[in-house]
């Protein structure tokens, strides 16, 4: 596959030229954060960020998504029959996704696309998406991707990776899908050895800038019931206000709720992101709630990511080390600290 060089102006111009063939999402600067937005002629993308406030997970798994629709009008011959809401799965490209967030999509994929059931919307949308990563020259102080199977220039889950070399991007296709996309853009020049070497050196040096880590090596061997009963959960959960920020920001959280919404005689069945931090998440019709207490819910979140997932899939933890939950938790609950407690736990 051919690695190319684009000046930053050329890159944005080339993307704008391809926006009829793909829906292209790019990071755009708001006051104090970056967010992915659909590219239009007016869009001014900005690649000067450490990470976007939210991962682009919602472009594959929308925060709120219509699943089905139905009529409740008795005059309608098909009243009460639930039908699939028509959707298009137009090709889309997410340009500027950080490697941790692409890795996260891979971690979530095992949930939505498993040997027994395939979530059709997730599968089709992921298939129609090209992930163009932007390697991290300046990782955050809270990043710990290197200890969970990723890295600032990890190619896991990406179709293309960009190396930011100040005034130019080195654009390296990783998959066939990624190469097709780059060829469609039709611009850029071949990368020469000098620039390729420079990109490699930069990537190597950024690896050393990831100074934060979590220990995970002993999690698999812990007895789940012992870890569950460990004495530290009360202390971990003590300050938690159950705001749900961690689950909302997490690129690997996948839980959702299903609700019916009716307007007049038309209705929709919709799924919405949900959060294990809410007591309603597990409240049963009888009033019984297996996780009625805050401590149980906090434990569920960490046990799911760092133990249940590890046991179930035998492919590491359900965390890509983006550090968002660490940065945004209003009471400073730190997954790195909890992972250490769990990994070091001995009965």
């Amino acid at each position: 596959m051919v690695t190319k060089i684009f000046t930053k102006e050329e890159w944005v111009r080339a993307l704008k030229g391809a926006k009829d063939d793909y829906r292209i999402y790019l990071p755009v600067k708001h006051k104090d954060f970056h967010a992915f937005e659909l590219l239009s002629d007016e869009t001014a993308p900005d690649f000067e960020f450490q990470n976007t406030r939210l991962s682009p997970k919602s472009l594959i798994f929308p925060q709120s998504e219509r699943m089905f629709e139905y009529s409740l009008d008795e005059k309608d011959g098909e009243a009460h029959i639930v039908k699939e809401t028509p959707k298009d799965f137009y090709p889309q490209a997410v340009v500027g996704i950080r490697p941790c967030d692409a890795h996260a999509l891979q971690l979530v994929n095992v949930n939505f696309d498993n040997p027994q059931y395939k979530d059709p919307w997730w599968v089709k949308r992921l298939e129609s998406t090209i992930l163009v990563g932007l390697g991290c020259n300046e990782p955050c102080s809270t990043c710990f991707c290197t200890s969970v199977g990723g890295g600032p220039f990890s190619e896991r889950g990406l179709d293309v990776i960009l190396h930011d070399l100040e005034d130019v991007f080195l654009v390296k296709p990783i998959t066939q899908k990624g190469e097709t996309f780059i060829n469609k853009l039709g611009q850029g020049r071949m990368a020469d050895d000098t620039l390729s070497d420079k990109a490699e050196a930069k990537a190597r040096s950024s690896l050393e800038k990831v100074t934060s880590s979590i220990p995970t090596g002993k999690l698999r061997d812990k007895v789940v019931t012992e870890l569950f009963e460990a004495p530290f959960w009360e202390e971990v959960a003590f300050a938690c206000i159950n705001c749900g920020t961690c689950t909302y920001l997490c690129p690997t959280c996948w839980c959702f709720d299903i609700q019916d919404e009716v307007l007049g005689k038309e209705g929709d069945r919709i799924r919405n992101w949900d959060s294990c931090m809410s007591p309603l998440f597990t409240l049963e019709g009888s009033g019984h709630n297996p996780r009625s207490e805050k401590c149980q819910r906090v434990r569920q979140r960490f046990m799911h990511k760092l133990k249940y997932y590890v046991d179930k899939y035998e492919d590491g933890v359900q965390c890509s080390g983006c550090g968002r939950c660490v940065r945004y938790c209003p009471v400073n609950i730190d997954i790195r600290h909890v992972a250490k407690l769990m990994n070091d736990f001995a009965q």
Partner: protein
Amino acid sequence: MENPYLPYPVRIDEITTETEDKNLKTFKLVFINPEDEEKFSYIPGQFAELSVAGKGEVPIGIASSPTEKGYLKFTINRVGLVTKHLHNMKEGDVMGIRGPLGNSYPWDEMEGKNVVIIGGGFAFTTLRSSIVYMIQPENRKKFKDISVVYGARTPGLLLYRYELDQWEQRDDIKMHITVDGTDDPDWKYNVGFVPTVTEQKITSAENAIALVCGPPIMIKFTQPVLEKLGFPSERIILSLEMRMKCGIGICGRCNIGDQYVCKDGPVFSLAQLKELPNEY
């Protein structure tokens, strides 16, 4: 790609009020598209998501047996948003059904064994399915003795009264029906709590497997009785409930440890549960 969230359309064929408090009704459902019935191939112990357009879905154990063709039966307690609405629906109404979901009772393991069925209150639905399935002539020979302990608070709260009386007449199934108490002078069966009656009537755990389904309090006190009888925890089988949405192990809420009650369950052996966090 099959959409596992899409319900099959069904019509309510018959509604039977089961209990004197009128809180439990049995819905007999018929597929609107006959080809859907073939796709919905189930075994006793599985459940389905019942779908009411405009209200939502609710996971309910299948009360009919696969040996009963042409319809499905669900006995529904009136509890929340969807079930309250269901109780107000009428015969002929259209709704939806998604499934079959979950594992089932361990039928391979049960073959050649004495089967002890212990049920309490309205948690008798998938046990009813199992009994009907086992006493069907071709299936009956696969199992040794079948004993049933089934209790409710009062005679009027027992489900499937017409069938209980029929099963009492049979000599290929030993019925031990009981109520916590009654002032009915004509009551001809047992009086006493399910664990007590189990202790009196079930005499051996030899080559036996127990299916237990009931309210938590019943399970709590039945478990030591079975253990005392000599049932190893691998042969005490429980069916669990949990709040569910997707029913296919994707939406993430019904987990016990790394197991989803909807997909890996709802049926677990006590031995399996002992290895999982106590959070259900």
